[in-house]
Every structure is written in structure tokens, then in C-alpha cells.
């Protein structure tokens, strides 16, 4: 199932990866200027937003877009990631179990991210694995249920679930940008390798016809669970980074609105592709940003109308349409 190292290196230079590398190059370049103190924090902040949006879109893509299982409760992993980072930081303050062990915020962040990823993998491998037996709408509803169970349990902690922490504010934005960049590169590499590996083709087979895939020898159960685990871990990574950036966690982090963001980005971009969530994520972010600037109170209405229009008239999404009209591009927009 896994790619060999040599093969993976070769795949990383395929045309399908150019889009991702181009983005990484831009983000790194802006980062270098930012770290050198040459530009203000406006552009890096904007790019961090985009990195997170594309990042969570890519995380959901592994299960929704590649395998065809629409998880409406994916925010649960995003929330768990944020919750873990918060808990680790809080336990390093006076009276916590990590008090006196270390107060290095970078170490704590990495610990928090790892804890979040571990918890998410645990949840995805147990409850998630059971829920993956369901198909279509039943799966979607069960994941919503999973999200709400954790959300309601989270509200029992702290004041209605609202927790804050002190991430240590020396060079905070510079550090945050570095972590977001590393997170983005990791996310892209993992999702890209899933897409081009045998595993990815197995997932595509599951999406098109699960029974047929099973008959043809795809270990559907195992593939689905692995895909769900990868998707969960990546969502937890971004949830953790997001909480670090906002220095807090709350029931809001588990809110379905993050699931919605992830789903809509994938739908707009085009299902079944790697370029879909990347392009969809960037466009969605721009649209969301513009609506928030010009018609802030109607942001939800705009989003709802876009979803209906896309699903009704362009169910194949931007990448699907572009690839159909311009055949040459389909090599790059895989």
C-alpha cells in the first residue's frame, strides 16, 4: 500500500504536484521576507488564513473527495486538536502536571499537536471505524452525532467550554507563520502522496462503486479506516495550529461551521481531485473574505446560495469543468 521512498521522490516531481509546490514556494518566499523583517504582518496573516483553509479542505478531501464519504462532523477533529494544545499549555502553568517540566512554548505546541493527533486517531480508529460501516447520508448523520457528543462534553470543561492559555508572545507571529508553513507542507505532501499512490486509487474505486471495488480485491474496510485516520490527524493538526494562533479553545472550535467550510471548499473545487480543495479553498477564502467586508451580515446567505448553485449546475466543480474544457491542464490539476 505504501509507496517506496524512491518512487515517492519521483512522484513528488510529477506535473500533478506543481500547483502545491508553487504555493509552497510563494508562502516560503513571503515567509523569508517576513522573518527578515522586511514586510508587515498583514500579508503573512492573510496567507496563514489561506494555508489553514486549504489545509482543512485537504484534510477532509482524503475521506470526502477521495473516498466519497461525506463527513459532516469533521470539525470534531479540528476541535480536538485545538483542545489538546490548550490543555497542554494550561497544564504547563502553575499546578499543572507539566509545571516545571518545560515552559518552552515550541515544545509545548509540538506536544499539544501530537496529543491532538493521537486523540483524533484514537477517535477515528474506534468510533470512526464503526461509523464507516454506514454509507451515504447515514454516515453523514452519524458523524454529526459524533461531533455533537464531543462538543457537548467539551462544554462541561471550564466556563461553558471556553478555555484560554498564554502561548508566550515573543516573536509570536514569526513562530506561528513557521508552524503554519510546516503544517501546510506536511499536509500537502501527505495528501498528494495519498492521491497518487495505489492507496489513493483504491479510495477512488471505493468512491465510484464500493461493492465492485471490494470484489476486485480492494480491502475496502481497511482503506476507509486508514483514509479516515489520515483525514482526522490532518484536521487535528490544523485545529491545534488554529488554537495556538487564537490562544483559546471553545465549543466554537467544534462547530459544524468548520465542517461546512471544509465541505464547501471541496464541492466548489471539484470532488475526487487534489487540485479541487486547493483551488476551492483559495477561491472560497477570497469570496468569504469579500462577503465579510462588503455584506458581513449576509455572509451565510451568500454561502448557502453558492452551495446550491454549485451543486445544481456545476456538480463537477471548478477543476472538473476546467479539466473538461482544457484537456492540457488535466495533467497538472489531478
Amino acid at each position, binding site marked *: 500500500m505504501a509507496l517506496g521512498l524512491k518512487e515517492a521522490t519521483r512522484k513528488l516531481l510529477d506535473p500533478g504536484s506543481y500547483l502545491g509546490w508553487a504555493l509552497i514556494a510563494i508562502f516560503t518566499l513571503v515567509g523569508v521576507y517576513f522573518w527578515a523583517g522586511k514586510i508587515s504582518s498583514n500579508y503573512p496573516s492573510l496567507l496563514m488564513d489561506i494555508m489553514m483553509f486549504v489545509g482543512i479542505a485537504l484534510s477532509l478531501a482524503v475521506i470526502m473527495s477521495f473516498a466519497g464519504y461525506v463527513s459532516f462532523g469533521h470539525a470534531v477533529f479540528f476541535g480536538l486538536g485545538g483542545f489538546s494544545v490548550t490543555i497542554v499549555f494550561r497544564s504547563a502553568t502553575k499546578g499543572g502536571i507539566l509545571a516545571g517540566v518545560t515552559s518552552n512554548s515550541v515544545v509545548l505546541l509540538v506536544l499539544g499537536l501530537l496529543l491532538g493527533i493521537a486523540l483524533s486517531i484514537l477517535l477515528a480508529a474506534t468510533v470512526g471505524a464503526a461509523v464507516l460501516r454506514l454509507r451515504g447520508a447515514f454516515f453523514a448523520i452519524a458523524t454529526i452525532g459524533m461531533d455533537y457528543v464531543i462538543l457537548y462534553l467539551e462544554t462541561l470543561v471550564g466556563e461553558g467550554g471556553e478555555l484560554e492559555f498564554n502561548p508566550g508572545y515573543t516573536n509570536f507571529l514569526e513562530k506561528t507563520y513557521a508552524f503554519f508553513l510546516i503544517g501546510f507542507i506536511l499536509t500537502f505532501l501527505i495528501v498528494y502522496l495519498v492521491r497518487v499512490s495505489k492507496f489513493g486509487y483504491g479510495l477512488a474505486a471505493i468512491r465510484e462503486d464500493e461493492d465492485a471495488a471490494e470484489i476486485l480485491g480492494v480491502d475496502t474496510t481497511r482503506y476507509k479506516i486508514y483514509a479516515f485516520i489520515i483525514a482526522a490527524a490532518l484536521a487535528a493538526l490544523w485545529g491545534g495550529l488554529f488554537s495556538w494562533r487564537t490562544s483559546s479553545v471553545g465549543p466554537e472550535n467544534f462547530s459544524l461551521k468548520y465542517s461546512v467550510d471544509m*465541505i464547501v471548499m471541496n464541492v466548489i473545487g471539484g470532488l475526487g481531485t487534489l487540485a479541487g480543495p486547493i483551488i476551492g479553498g483559495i477561491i472560497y477564502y477570497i469570496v468569504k473574505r469579500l462577503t465579510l467586508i462588503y455584506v458581513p451580515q449576509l455572509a451565510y446567505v451568500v454561502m448557502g446560495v453558492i452551495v446550491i448553485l454549485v451543486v445544481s449546475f456545476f456538480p463537477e466543480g471548478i477543476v472538473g469543468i476546467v479539466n473538461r474544457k482544457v484537456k492540457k491542464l488535466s495533467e497538472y490539476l489531478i
Partner: protein
Amino acid sequence: MDAASLVTNILNGLITGAILGAVASGLTLIWGVMKVVNLAHGHLAVLGAFLAVILYKYTIGLNPLLAPFAVFIIGVVIGAIFYYTSLHIIVGKAETMTLKVEMNSLLSTFGFGIAIYGLLSYAIGRGWIAQYEGFTGWALKVGGKTYTTILGTNIIYAKLYAVAIAVLLIVAVEMFLRKTIWGLTIRAVAQDSRAVALTGYNPVTVKLVTTLLSTAMALMGGALYAIFVGSGINPDLEHVLAPLSFVIVVLGGLGSVLGTFIGGLIIGVTNGIVYALTGETAIGLATSFVILILLLLWKPTGLFGR
């Protein structure tokens, strides 16, 4: 916990459950008949609650007791808008619901839902309507008292009225589905839409009628909920009503209106008992979703499903 407070919590649970059953009953219809998992259902119910308040407070001063019926009629119109904007292109012509169609309908209803949410938030943001207000200042009085005492528990008359109308709605819809030719057709489409077409009924029309009925029931359920809670109506109620509706519908069995009502009672009582034991509403809600996941895994057809 003593026996008296347990009785109180169970009684309150039954009342809450009856209302939730009424809210969820529209969902079982559209899901059971059209196989459309209507993610806008919760938003539609909240819209119904707001419409009831708007009719009473901001426009014609309609008596809250009549609100559910008025909202039902408005719901038919909104149902038509809902069908033609979000469903017709996707499921109108679809003979069978493939996974792809199902997913698309899920997303489009979802889009309609957040559009409603956005419009309500907009109206609130502009100060056209107020949230957390509901029917504050209004109370149903019988003999100068606003509540009666049943088994040592004080129960507000308005809540009893809402329960009575909820039961009426369930019975009426159940009769409609069993006794009228349209009802029979709707149930037939749920089983075999092609066979219905052969008998001369247009399945597209049946889908439209189902959506109208389901939407009107969702809005009416919301209006009943508004009477039931009295105040505290806000757009985020959706986060309680929608997921609970899913739990109840799955519990009651897809397509069974009566089953949904009983499912509502079960969830209401469960929440009541869990609340009595733990003192936390959140744990009661979490329990409901655990029930949902377990049910989906072990008996997705529910208690009364085929």
C-alpha cells in the same frame, strides 16, 4: 434524587418529547419518501418559531394559539420555494436515489438551511426582529391561573396546549397518509416510484407535495416549540432541533410519522432522566447522540421502520 423530582423530570420529558416529535415528524416524511436527508429541517423549524413570533409581535398581533396553523399555511409557500430552489433540479427527475444524488441533495438542502440562518441573523442584526424574545409577556390563562398541577408538578397551560396541537398534527398527518388517495400515493412513492408513475401519478408532483407537507410540518413544529419555550427563540436553536430531529427520526423509523412521535417521547424522557441524574443538559444531549450512533450501527431501520 427523590421520587417526586424523578416524576417531575419524566413528565417534563414527555412534554418536551411530544414537541420534539412534532418538530421531527416533517423530516421523517421527506427522508422516508424522497430519500432526501433534509439538512435544512432544523433551520425551517427555527424559521417557523420566528414566524409565529413575528405574526404575534411585529405584524398583525395574531394570537399565539392560532400561530401554528397560520405558520403551517405559510410553510406550504416556503416549501414551494424550497423545492424549486434546492431540490427540483437534483432529485425531481431522479428515478432512483444514487449515492451521488443523495450527497448532492444533502449539500443543497444544507445550503438552503444556512441561507435561512443567514437571513434570520440578518433580520436580527438590522433590528427588525429580536432574538431571545419569543412570546415573552404572553401567557395562556385558564381560570386566572397560568399553570395546572399534575402529579405534584406545575405545568404551564401553554405547554399543554402545544402538546395537544402536536398530537393533533401527528394524528392528522397519519390519517392523511393512510386514508386519502394523496397520502397513499406518497407512501407508494416511498416504495416504488416507477409503479406509481404507471398508475398515472406524476412522481415529480408527488415529490413536490411531499416537500410542501414536510416543510409546513417543520415550520408548524417550530411554532409549537415557540409556544412551548415561551422565550429564548434564536437562530442557533437549530443546533439543538436539527440533530435531535435526526436522532428521533432514526429512532422512530424512517417514514413512520407515528414512530417519530413515539421516538420523540423516548428521547424527551431519556433527556429528562439523565438531567435528573446529572444536573447537566449537555450530558442529556450527548446521550441522545450516543443513542443515535448506536442505533445507526445496529438497527438503522429504527423501532417502527420497515
